[in-house]
């Protein structure tokens, strides 16, 4: 069995490593192409980012163009950037001149903090609600979570965020509307992301609980004489866990999509926030750095999901 597990582990990690490389290349290329397509003079926007709009003229923009080699053909710029990437460098920010890696490093902590808080919230809400719905299908908890999860999934994060901001901050004044560093700043963005995820989690948990409880082996466990609680503990949890981890892991992509919007909305200084600013100032290396990091984060989450599945399910990964 140990051999199988090691084999499975090696396969998961190998597959994910290849995926990370392919995703990096694709994301980098797409990013570069899309930024080139943005309207307006890139050099002008970068100069404005450095000196402010009021102090920019054609001469300043030209100076920037010369300095950054923006007049070069696009493919040369891209090749240059790829070369840097191969050496493990993400380049310098065009606006601040600082190393992209360092700049992103500042933001990464904030993003991880927000993501962890949202996932904790989603699980804290979704698991018990899903369990309650799955154990009593058609009951009030089931109907309520169905309604809530549909509503939450239908609401785009920025709208949910605005509603929460209006309700909890403007009307009730419980927490600050936006910002970072004060007590309670984390609550609104985490709630916005967490609520969206929790609805989905609850439905996934509900469906897998129902499937397990209605399964032949679960009924057999009960008629063997196990108490309901013992049957759930021994046969329910692990089997429910397998499905929940597999599906919920995939849904974590919502987290990455949500982080960009929610961070900007609540002025939370994470990677998503940095990304939006970088797009605004046409800070190409910064855009590429941020998207690459988000893509890697996605691959990392998938890898963790796979490893967790491998740990829970003794049957090992499915044969291709």
């Amino acid at each position: 069995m140990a051999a199988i597990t090691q084999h499975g582990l090696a396969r998961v990690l190998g597959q994910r490593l290849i995926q990370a490389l392919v995703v990096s290349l694709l994301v980098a290329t797409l990013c570069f192409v899309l930024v080139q397509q943005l309207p307006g003079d890139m050099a002008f926007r970068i100069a404005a980012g450095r000196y402010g709009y009021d102090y920019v003229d054609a001469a300043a923009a030209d100076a920037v163009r010369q300095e950054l080699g923006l007049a070069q053909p696009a493919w040369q710029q891209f090749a240059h950037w790829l070369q840097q990437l191969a050496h493990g460098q993400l380049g310098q920010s065009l606006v601040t001149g600082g190393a992209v890696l360092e700049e992103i490093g500042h933001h990464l902590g904030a993003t991880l903090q927000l993501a962890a808080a949202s996932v904790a919230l989603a699980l804290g809400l979704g698991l018990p609600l899903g369990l309650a719905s799955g154990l009593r299908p058609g009951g009030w908890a089931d109907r309520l979570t169905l309604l809530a999860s549909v509503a939450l999934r239908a609401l785009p994060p920025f709208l949910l965020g605005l509603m929460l901001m209006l309700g909890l901050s403007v009307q009730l004044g419980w927490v600050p509307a936006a910002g970072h560093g004060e007590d309670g700043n984390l609550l609104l963005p985490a709630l916005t992301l967490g609520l969206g995820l929790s609805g989905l989690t609850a439905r996934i948990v509900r469906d897998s609980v129902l499937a397990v409880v209605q399964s032949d082996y679960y009924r057999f466990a009960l008629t063997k004489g196990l108490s309901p609680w013992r049957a759930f503990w021994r046969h329910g949890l692990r089997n429910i866990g397998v499905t929940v981890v597999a599906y919920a892991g995939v849904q974590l992509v919502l987290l990455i999509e949500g982080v960009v919007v929610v961070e900007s909305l609540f002025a939370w200084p994470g990677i998503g926030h940095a990304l939006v600013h970088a797009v605004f100032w046409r800070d190409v290396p910064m855009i590429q750095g941020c998207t690459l990091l988000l893509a890697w984060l996605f691959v990392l989450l998938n890898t963790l999901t796979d490893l967790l599945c491998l740990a829970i399910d003794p049957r090992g990964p499915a044969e291709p």
Partner: protein
Amino acid sequence: MNSLHLDGVAVYQQQHCLLQALDLTLYPGEALTVLGESGSGKSLLAHAIMGTLPAGLRARGQLRQGSQTWPLADAANRRALWGQQLAILPQEPATALDPTMRVLPQVAEGWRGEAGSAQAEARGQLARLGLQAAQRHYPHQLSGGMAQRVAFAAATLGGAGLLLADEPSKGLDNRACATLAQLLQQHLADGRCLLTITHDIALARTLGGQVLVMRGGEVVEHGPASRVLQQPQHPYTQQLLAAEPPAWPAIAHPAPGDWLLQGRSLAKAYGSQALFRNVDIDIAAGERVALLADSGAGKSTLGNILLGLTRADHGSVRYRDGLPRTAWQKLYQDPVQAFAPHISLHTALHDVLQHCGQPLASLETLLHRLRLSPGLLARKPSQVSGGELQRLALIRTLLLQPALLFADEPTSRLDPLTQQDTVHCLLDELARIGCALLLVTHDHALAGKTTSRQLRL
């Protein structure tokens, strides 16, 4: 242990009676077998005794042993007996075992005595059943027969005096069926009670004891197995016995025509395990051929290779020219799994009609000939009986005008009456369009009656 009495057991859905009141006595060491076709309410009897009736159904009557009685109307009062005095041997053992737990703990948790000795007891039980080597296996690593023995070990470790076996032989091959019969006889030999609910007449014959024949929720005949199965009194029992393949009258097979398909030196292995090697097979137009083997011998795989659904490791298959790809069709073992569960049968069949450009009339003719009401089409696959669904699956393939139909155990999940009916429909329709049949089965009698040539793998 004392004998168990069931007084006036009945099952109702609101005012509608699904199982008519009946009195039974179960004697230790003597089998009681309930026979009947699917939908005769015989499974309800087991659930009523156990207290596991689906929501909406009510049981009446009582269970009595010595001076103790348990009214059946209150399902909860028997929960304390589960494992210790009442046990149920699940249908389809492969799905009744937790896929994520090893064999030993699954068996050990059935022990109802002192917790410390559970492991040792389970080991002993598994050893008696010849499963020492499988203790650390997961269910997916077990064969059908092994899973059957593990489920038996788990169900009986608690030492229950009454074992309820609900369709225990469904979907099992000959060898696993023989194992099952042995296990049940062993249980009886230990001086315990056994109530078996089945449509497998061979199993009833092996177990002996008393036999109860049910139809439409009503007992039509009750007596010693030797008498009921030898000299049945009731016409329904006679009909049931005549539906067993060995009792079928001989069937005339059409003469084979030109060659249709040639498989040459076919071989297939999964991993290091070789299924078969150097198999040559010829099928002529309109011919009826059976492939016989135990489960796991690769007979379904061979059929799939002939149809081009699976690639062979070695060898080749030649098809007669001029036939479209859809001329090679397959009828699946479990009709429920062969239909999309949430799509209505109407949609499922009309899609095929549209695909092959046939008029609606051809579907209606087929429905009429196979005695299926057009009203059935409005339902979902789970809402019609197994026999009806298998006939609908047959219609689905017939619409495509097949030249060869590969039927993979098409009746192994059906009761004998439904089986006989389905097979006759199948043969009539194939003869009508001159389609050849490749039947995969483990039932020698069925193969002998339905086909003119049998191949063993």
